[in-house]
């Protein structure tokens, strides 16, 4: 029973690492596309992606893991920039810029990094506990 629980913690933490990696990937996509405008006249630019998490009961592990529930799109308005020479400029000379705000993305990145580190910590703690159990066999 004890080893089951400790083994389960590794699987739970693994799910956490995976979910946070996905979040980091989305942050990277957003940042990389912070200047991706349309190429056609008056077209929409890149729309910021969002990640939402949900807890999920895994019957195999017997614990509540975490999973990425949905990668959605941020519905907020685009910013406008005046650049009549741009291929995506509308009749008035305005270009729609992506609704990506680097500051928000950086904050999200820090948060994901922190959660990732916390899961790594749990793995280290659980591994230390498992080592103690194995040491009992040696004594």
């Amino acid at each position, binding site marked *: 029973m004890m080893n089951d629980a400790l083994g389960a913690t590794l699987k739970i933490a693994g799910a956490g690492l995976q979910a946070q990696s996905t979040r980091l990937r989305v942050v990277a996509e957003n940042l990389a596309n912070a200047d991706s405008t349309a190429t056609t006249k008056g077209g929409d630019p890149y729309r910021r992606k969002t990640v939402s998490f949900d807890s999920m009961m895994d019957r195999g592990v017997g614990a509540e893991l975490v999973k990425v529930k949905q990668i959605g799109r941020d519905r907020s308005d685009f910013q406008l920039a005046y650049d009549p020479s741009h291929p995506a400029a509308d009749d008035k000379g305005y270009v729609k810029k992506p609704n990506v705000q680097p500051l928000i993305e950086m904050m999200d990145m820090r948060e994901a990094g922190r959660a990732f580190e916390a899961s790594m910590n749990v793995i280290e703690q659980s591994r*230390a506990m498992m080592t103690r159990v194995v040491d009992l066999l040696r004594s």
Partner: protein
Amino acid sequence: MDLGKIGFFQLAGTRLDYLAQRQKLVAENVVNANTPDYQARDLKSFDSVMEGIRPVEAARTSGLHLVSTRSTAGFREAGKAALWETTPSGNAVSLEQEMIKGSETRDAFALTTSLFQRNVQMLRMAWRNG
């Protein structure tokens, strides 16, 4: 000889089980630190286990019945864990708090296994000299 019948080993075994289950709950809390409306969970103190408080499990009258996955294998969950903070999304997991709980659990686990080893050594000495 059954070590489980010796009081100390029985107690140490229960304590190790308790700590392993607590670590599992810490892991669940940590990975759900960004899940909206997730409430951190914790076990009741080890004292209450010693007082013989046991959770009531639903009786399974058929082999096809599912085992409750919410069960923490014989240890009772605290009704409401002592929470540090709740975010606007309704999430009540503090990573700092969970890290402290995790290291407490690891240290208590190390202490218990050391005591376990020491008692085995004492038994060995007794056998050798007996």
